[in-house]
């Protein structure tokens, strides 16, 4: 297992917060999980990883047999990085432990967007770090293909504590697809993932995260982004497989003029899944913009869909859209959109709707010759297919594939 260098101050703060409950979500007993004692071997060629693991990773959008459509790849199995590589110039991809050893300036980013003592999960990541990825686009470099990263959990009762850092230097463009998944069994596990994004002046980052867990896994990601002048951060989140408990509320600060953040989330909760997912954006500089869109479907599980936009600078604009669909099987969707304005002239709005599929719509499609099942599937597919502006075509197609693969189970 890699040793991660960290400062005394962070460690002290983490120790003080080691028992601090999170503000949201059911409490997870950290003592129920263990770190992995095994250290899988490094794979220079990731296609050599075991076929069942590759299949699971593919379900989360991570392709290992053909890397030609990827500018870089990072794979972590349990608590150990097993592969990292780069295929395109101007991008760095490596285990975060390596980046900490290589760059002194990492201190400028390490726990700077996410507070180390936010809760016991962030504290635990600091106290028992199991690496994570470091992805950086160099100034002015625009990657064509996405970097892919996979955080894979295979062992029963595993606790995976990762800390990821993503930096898009000035004028760069970076596309990332992250797949987080488990082995094919239904072993319990806990994933704690801290991710810090730094989008510099004029840079653009699209980040697409596909979670594909199992019904016994608890997940507590802690993510934050800082977006500078004219920067764009586009974050897409897809969760269509069962998970025991997931709570996350990623946040982005637009600190530079005209900085833009867009969040799109597609959430599906079958019976037994408990999701508390939101997105938060603070518009702190003139002309900053945000759009937070979520689509939540329950087939028996529970979803809290949150959203928060705060505007505190002139000419900022934000919109929050939260739509929920309750399919057969019941379940609960609780939409909590929040807006906070601190200045005259800001423009913040939200719309939220929770309901079932309208019979009138089903019958409209049936009158065109679709069976009831086909009509319902078409409406559900339309509901979750959010048009994601700014996503490169290859990534858009992959996202579509991942959604399609999961739709079959949903139906």
């Amino acid at each position, binding site marked *: 297992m890699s040793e991660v260098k960290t400062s005394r101050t962070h460690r002290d703060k983490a120790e003080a917060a080691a028992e601090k409950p999170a503000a949201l979500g059911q409490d997870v007993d950290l003592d129920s999980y263990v770190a992995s004692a095994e250290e899988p071997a490094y794979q220079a060629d990731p296609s050599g990883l075991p076929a069942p693991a590759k299949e699971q990773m593919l379900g989360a959008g991570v392709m290992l047999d053909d890397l030609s459509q990827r500018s870089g790849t990072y794979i972590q199995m349990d608590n150990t990085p097993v592969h990292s590589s780069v295929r395109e110039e101007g991008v760095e991809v490596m285990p975060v432990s390596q980046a900490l050893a290589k760059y002194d300036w990492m201190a400028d980013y390490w726990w700077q967007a996410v507070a180390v003592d936010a809760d016991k999960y962030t504290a635990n990541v600091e106290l028992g770090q199991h690496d994570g990825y470091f992805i950086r686009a160099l100034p002015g470099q625009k990657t064509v293909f996405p970097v892919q990263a996979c955080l894979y959990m295979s062992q029963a009762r595993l606790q995976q504590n990762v800390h990821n850092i993503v930096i898009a230097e000035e004028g760069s463009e970076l596309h990332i697809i992250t797949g987080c998944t488990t082995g094919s069994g239904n072993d319990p596990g806990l994933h704690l993932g801290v991710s810090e994004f730094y989008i510099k002046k004029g840079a653009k980052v699209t980040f697409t995260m596909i979670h594909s867990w199992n019904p016994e896994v608890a997940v507590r990601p802690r993510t934050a982004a800082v977006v500078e002048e004219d920067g764009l951060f586009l974050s897409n989140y897809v969760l269509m497989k069962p998970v025991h408990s997931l709570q996350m509320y990623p946040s982005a600060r637009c600190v530079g003029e005209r900085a833009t953040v867009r969040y799109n989330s597609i959430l599906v909760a079958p019976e037994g899944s408990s999701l508390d997912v939101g997105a938060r954006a603070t518009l702190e500089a003139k002309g900053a913009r945000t759009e937070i869109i979520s689509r939540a479907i329950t087939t028996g599980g529970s979803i809290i869909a949150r959203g928060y936009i705060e505007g505190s600078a002139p000419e900022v604009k934000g919109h929050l859209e939260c*739509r929920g669909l309750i399919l057969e099987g019941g379940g609960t969707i609780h939409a909590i959109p929040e807006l906070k304005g601190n200045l005259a002239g800001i423009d913040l709005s939200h719309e939220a709707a929770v309901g079932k599929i*309208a019979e*009138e*719509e089903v*019958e*409209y*499609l*049936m*009158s*065109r*010759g*679709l*069976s*009831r099942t*086909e*009509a319902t599937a*078409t*409406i559900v*597919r*339309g*509901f*979750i*297919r959010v048009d994601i502006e700014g996503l490169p075509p290859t990534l858009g197609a992959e996202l579509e594939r991942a959604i399609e693969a999961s739709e079959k189970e949903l139906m």
Partner: protein
Amino acid sequence: MLEIKHLAVAVEGREILHDVTMKIGVGETHVLFGPNGSGKTTLLAAIMGFPKYKVTAGSISFRGKNITKLSLDERARLGIGMSFQRPPVVRGVKTRDMVAACLRGRGDGEIIERLAEKTDLTDFMEREINYGFSGGEIKRSEMMQLLAQKPELALLDEPESGVDLENIALIGSLINELLEKDCPIVDRKCMGLIITHTGHILDYVDARTGYVMCQGRIGCEGDPHEILKNIKQKGYEECTQCLVRRFH
């Protein structure tokens, strides 16, 4: 052929249509006139098979088969199609998806593009179906879907309502194409039943037979232009009075 015999239809327990009988031969277009609330849309919905419209007496046969008990989608697949007066918005489902669904694998993207061009809806294909569409756009979109569906019986609910003059001509030509009006009468396969309140559509689409429906009954049957002339002269009130004299 469509054959409706002594049909009675109830909605939420209340009988709306009483003893409706009608026969449309292959390739024929018929027009149903009637004031608002007379039961015209109920008749189309009952022929199409919407579950809310319960047949309480009589029968509907299509292509020699009794379809009274068939479901909505079975009837659609058998060759019955309907253009809606006020179709619902289906969020997330694109116009293109709807047209593709209507084609049911019979065509490719090129056919969809041609239909979009023909109905002047090229810019609407990626939009959510009916979301923010104007009256004319809705009618054109409904016609585009029917042209893709290629039904043998087209049920058209007020195709001219809410449509400006320029669009009526286009809608009229699309209906004529759907009903194969450019073919010799004997070669036409598609039957049409058009509901109209104002009769304006008859300026663009020829029909063989007209009916007047009032209070859920067919009052009279005859030459559609003659019927329309009477309605224009005397209004629907006269038709209603006529029915009252005959049935009460």
